[in-house]
């Protein structure tokens, strides 16, 4: 392996890199013969060791020379002195070849210029494998060698890496391909991941993203989600350790939703969308494997919820009557963001009869009141996901998002006589000292409204939060960087 990683030196003189599967390389064969007569010339061939035959080529079908010397196109002509590259030119350009080689009258019968072809060493299908083979030193994670008779899927379970579902084996090749999804350096620290507060590199996130089933283009979303989750404001440690059934919920806004094929419509919280299913899972695996947060250890949830495996969705911005959630939280238009919310499983709100916005707002409010317990107020935030058919009612009546939020806030004022301990014959509630107060269900910024879901169904949904504010967790917005 170390032989492969070391860059092979280039011989002094002229060096040409070619492949048979390139018409320009075929074209310059007479020029290569001409050069070989005048100067020391070494030809490397990428696909067929028999090409060009005269002059005889060095075999670079392994692409080791091409990869290490960053050949991007063929033919490439280089001039090397004392093992150091002095100059290179790509494709066929008579003037440049003559200047570089110092040989005049090259290929008189050829056209003066022909662009080259792509080098095999940058072929997207081969590049991750070559990077794994020749660039392995860039990956610093410990290598785990499997025994000959060990089943690789079972081996990952046995090592405790899995959340219960099968994992994609994180080979060097796959991790290299995953890292191609970001411009960030593999060894850059992304965050300190709770509960163990372990420094986590881009590489570690990429390994867990591979296992979760992510495609490389999802990686920037996963990285942003890890950053957001590991802030003091979001308090991932507390959210993990709580006995409440909540976990990180990732809401994606902006152009990247469509670019990576996220679902915003039918079954938006459900199964079947790779991006949603795997991005949330990648965050969960980072917390599990890097942070050391596992159920029964630091994770003390009484019930948990199925969304703790993965809960990531995107807002239907195009079909929405309102600006997106990211804009509500201060993001400028056109930016791609993640918002992390400490949420429980979504719950359906059915109203198939309300046709005016006041009726529908009342209907939503009476459901929102029940979050966690109808007598518990102010302690928990909530995402209200308004479905397209409910949104239509507000759109047609000209209700802005702010108008809906204000009206819900008015409708969710609760008198002390209803919420104090013992009221209604129910012990749960707020202290007796608040009997004369009227309190809202949610703090002013505690109701987050998004638009998503399938086009048929007069439904909305609510995703209840964990303890809010300084004591618990704040929703955290993060811009997604390439």
């Amino acid at each position, binding site marked *: 392996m170390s032989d*492969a990683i070391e860059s092979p030196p280039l011989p002094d003189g002229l060096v040409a890199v070619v492949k048979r*599967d390139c018409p320009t390389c075929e074209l310059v064969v007479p020029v290569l013969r001409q050069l070989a007569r005048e100067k020391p010339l070494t030809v490397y061939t990428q*696909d*067929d060791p028999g090409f060009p035959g005269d002059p005889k080529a060095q075999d670079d*079908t*392994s*692409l*080791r020379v091409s990869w290490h010397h960053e050949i991007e196109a063929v033919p490439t002509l280089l001039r090397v002195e004392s093992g150091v590259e002095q100059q290179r030119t790509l494709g066929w350009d008579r003037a440049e070849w003559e200047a570089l080689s110092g040989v005049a009258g090259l290929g008189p019968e050829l056209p003066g210029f022909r662009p080259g072809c792509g080098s*095999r060493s940058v072929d997207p299908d*081969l590049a991750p*494998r*070559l990077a*794994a*083979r020749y660039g392995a030193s860039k*990956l610093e*994670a*410990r*290598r*785990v*060698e*499997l025994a*000959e008779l060990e089943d*690789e899927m079972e*081996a*990952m379970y046995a*090592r405790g*890496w899995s959340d219960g579902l099968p994992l994609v*084996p*994180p*080979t*060097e*090749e796959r*991790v290299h391909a995953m890292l191609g999804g970001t411009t960030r350096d593999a060894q850059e620290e992304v965050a300190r991941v709770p509960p*163990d507060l*372990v420094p986590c590199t881009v*590489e*570690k996130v990429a*390994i*867990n993203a591979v*296992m979760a089933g992510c495609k490389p283009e999802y990686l920037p979303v996963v990285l942003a989600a890890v950053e957001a989750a590991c802030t003091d404001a979001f308090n991932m440690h507390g959210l993990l350790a709580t006995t409440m059934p909540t976990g990180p919920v990732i809401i994606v806004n902006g152009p990247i939703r469509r670019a990576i094929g996220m679902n915003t419509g039918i079954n938006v919280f459900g199964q079947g969308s790779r991006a949603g299913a795997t991005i949330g899972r990648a965050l969960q*695996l980072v917390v599990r*494997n*890097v*942070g*050391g947060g596992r159920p029964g250890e630091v994770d003390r949830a009484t019930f948990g919820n199925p969304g703790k495996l993965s809960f990531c969705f995107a807002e239907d911005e195009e079909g929405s009557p309102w600006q997106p959630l990211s804009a509500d939280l201060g993001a400028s238009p056109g930016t791609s963001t993640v918002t992390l919310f400490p949420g429980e499983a979504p719950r359906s709100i059915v109203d198939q009869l309300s046709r005016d916005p006041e009726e529908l707002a009342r209907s939503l409010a009476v459901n929102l009141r029940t979050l966690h317990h109808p007598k518990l107020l102010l302690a928990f935030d909530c995402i209200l996901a308004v479905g397209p058919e409910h949104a239509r009612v507000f759109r047609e009546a000209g209700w802005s998002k702010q108008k809906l939020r204000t009206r819900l806030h008015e409708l969710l004022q609760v008198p002390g006589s209803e919420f104090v301990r013992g009221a209604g014959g129910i012990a749960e509630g707020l202290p007796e000292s608040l009997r004369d107060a009227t309190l809202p269900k949610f703090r002013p910024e505690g109701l987050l409204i998004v638009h998503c879901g399938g086009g048929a169904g007069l439904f909305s949904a609510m995703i209840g939060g964990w303890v809010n504010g300084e004591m618990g967790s704040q929703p955290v917005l993060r811009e997604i960087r390439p």
Partner: protein
Amino acid sequence: MSRPSDTSGTSGNGSPRVLLDPTSESRPASRPRLPRLESLEGRTVGLLDISKARGDLFLDELEARLRAQGARVERYKKPTFTKPAPVDLRHEIATKCDAVVEALAD
């Protein structure tokens, strides 16, 4: 088109399959074996009878051969083959012996 000849990765025929560790690497990936003994001369070898039929005959033979090579031999016996060896017995073997042979039988 030919494929790169020596870039078959780590999952090819016969070559080891290698995964990248997704964890914080704060725990060892595997427990290394103790170094092998270079000679039995003067070393203590424990022979553990797991209490299966005729295991003692096999171990008697083994003891004679080990002694002939200059090893000291200690004999141990599990109460029953159906359960793991008691902690005390394992501890005694670990403290007194340089190597151990655990005998099956039948």
